[in-house]
C-alpha cells in the first residue's frame, strides 16, 4: 500500500514540477482573496489584526478547492483515472498518494503566501513551531476530505463545481481548528491544546474513512 502511495505521490510531484498548475493557481487565488478582503473590510486596525488567521484560512479554504479539483480533473482528462482503477494495486494506496501530494501542495502554497500575509495584515509570528504544526495539520485535514470529494466530483456532470458544495460543509471543524491554532501561533488566542487534538482526530478519522471507501469511488471512474 505504501509503495503504491509513493509511486502516485512521485507521479503527482513530477507533473506539478513540470506544470506548476495547482500551486500557482491556489497561490494567485489566495492572494486575490486577501487583497479583496483588504478592500471589502478595512483590515489595518488592531481589531482586524486579531482576526487575521480567519482571513488567511478562508482564503485557503477557497484556494484549496482549486488545487484539489485539479487533482482528479487531471486524471479524468487523460483517462488516467481508469488506468489507476484497473491497475492491480490497492485503492487505499492510490488515495494516500494523491492525498499526500495534495497536502504537500497546500502546505507549500501556504508557506509561499505566508510572507505576503504577514506584510498585508501586519501580524507577527509569536510561535513558529505552532504555526508550522497548524499549517501542516490543516493542510492534511483539507487534503484528506478534499481528495476523496475531488474524486467524487470528477465523476459528475458538474465536475469541479460540485467540489466546494460537498467539501466546505464537511471541513467546518477543520477550518475552525486551523483558524484557532494559527491564531494561537500569532499570539491572538489561548488554549490551543483542544484545537490541535481536534485537528489530529479529524485527520485520522477522515484519512481512515477515505482509505476504506476509496476503492468504491475509484471503480466508478
Amino acid at each position, binding site marked *: 500500500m505504501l509503495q503504491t502511495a509513493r509511486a502516485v505521490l512521485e507521479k503527482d510531484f513530477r507533473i506539478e514540477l513540470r506544470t506548476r498548475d495547482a500551486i500557482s493557481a491556489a497561490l494567485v487565488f489566495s492572494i486575490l482573496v486577501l487583497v479583496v478582503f483588504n478592500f471589502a473590510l478595512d483590515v489595518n486596525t488592531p481589531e482586524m489584526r486579531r482576526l487575521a488567521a480567519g482571513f488567511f484560512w478562508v482564503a485557503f479554504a477557497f484556494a484549496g478547492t482549486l488545487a484539489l479539483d485539479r487533482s482528479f480533473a487531471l486524471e479524468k482528462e487523460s483517462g488516467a483515472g481508469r488506468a489507476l482503477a484497473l491497475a492491480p494495486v490497492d485503492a487505499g494506496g492510490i488515495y494516500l498518494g494523491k492525498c499526500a501530494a495534495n497536502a504537500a501542495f497546500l502546505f507549500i502554497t501556504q508557506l509561499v503566501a505566508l510572507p505576503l500575509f504577514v506584510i498585508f495584515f501586519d501580524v507577527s509570528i509569536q510561535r513558529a513551531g505552532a504555526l508550522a504544526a497548524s499549517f501542516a495539520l490543516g493542510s492534511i485535514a483539507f487534503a484528506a476530505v478534499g481528495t*476523496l470529494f475531488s474524486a467524487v466530483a470528477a465523476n*459528475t456532470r458538474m465536475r469541479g463545481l460540485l467540489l466546494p458544495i460537498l467539501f466546505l*460543509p*464537511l471541513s467546518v471543524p477543520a477550518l475552525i481548528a486551523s483558524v484557532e491554532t494559527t491564531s494561537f501561533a500569532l499570539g491572538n*488566542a489561548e488554549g490551543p491544546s483542544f484545537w490541535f487534538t481536534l485537528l489530529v482526530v479529524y485527520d485520522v478519522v477522515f484519512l481512515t474513512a477515505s482509505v476504506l*471507501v476509496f476503492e468504491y469511488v475509484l471503480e466508478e471512474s
Partner: protein
Amino acid sequence: MSRCKFAIFIDSMLFITMAAAMAMIFLYAPIESEMGIVQKIFYVHVPLAWNAFLGFAMVFYYSFRYLSTRNPRYDRRALSAAEVGVLFTTLVLITGPIWAKPVWGIWWTWDARLTLTLVLWLIYIGYLMLRRYIESPERRAVLAAVVGITGFIDVPLVYFAIRWWRTQHPQPVIAGGEGSGLDPAMAATLWVSVAAFTFLFLALFGRRLDVEVERSRRETERDAAEAAHAQGVRT
C-alpha cells in the same frame, strides 16, 4: 401486500398521534410563564429536529448497507431518508428563528445546536445535488453512499468544534434553554408530539420510497422490453 398493510398502520397511527398531539399542545399543555404562547412552537420544532437527525442516521446506515451488499433497494431508502431529512431540517431552520425572535430578540445565534443543524442541512443539500448530476444509476448510488457515510462521520466533529468554539467566544446569553426543568405536562405533550412526528416521518419516507420502487420497476421492465425488441430485430 404487507407493505400496504404496514402503510395503513403507519397512516392510522399518524392520524391518531397527530390529533392527540395537537389537542395536547393547544388544550392540555400549560402556557409557559416567561415566553408565553410562542413557546408552543417548541412542540413541533424539537420533534422535527430529532426526526431529521434520525433521517440522516438512516442515510448513513443504508449507504453502508448499499456499499456492502450492492442491493439498489438500500440506495432507494437512503435517497428517501435524505429527502425527508432535508425537508425536516428546513422546517427546523424556519421554525427556529420564528421562535427565537420574539423570545430572545434575535433571529439567529451561532449556538452549537443551531449551527450543527445548518451544517447538516448544507451537507445533505450537497448529497441531493450530487445525485442530480450523475446519470448512471449504479455510479450515482456508490458515490452518494460515500458522501452519505463521510457526511455523517463529520457530525460529532462539527458538534464538538462548535461547542468548544462557543465556550471561547462570548455569545449572547440565552436564558431558559430547552429541557431546563420541563413541566411534566409539557414533557408528556412533547413525547406525544415526538411520536406523531416520527409517524409523519415514516409515512413521508414510505410514500417517497414507493415512488422510487415503482420507478425502478418500470425501468427494469422497459430495459427488458428493449432488450427483447433488440433481440427481435437482430434475428
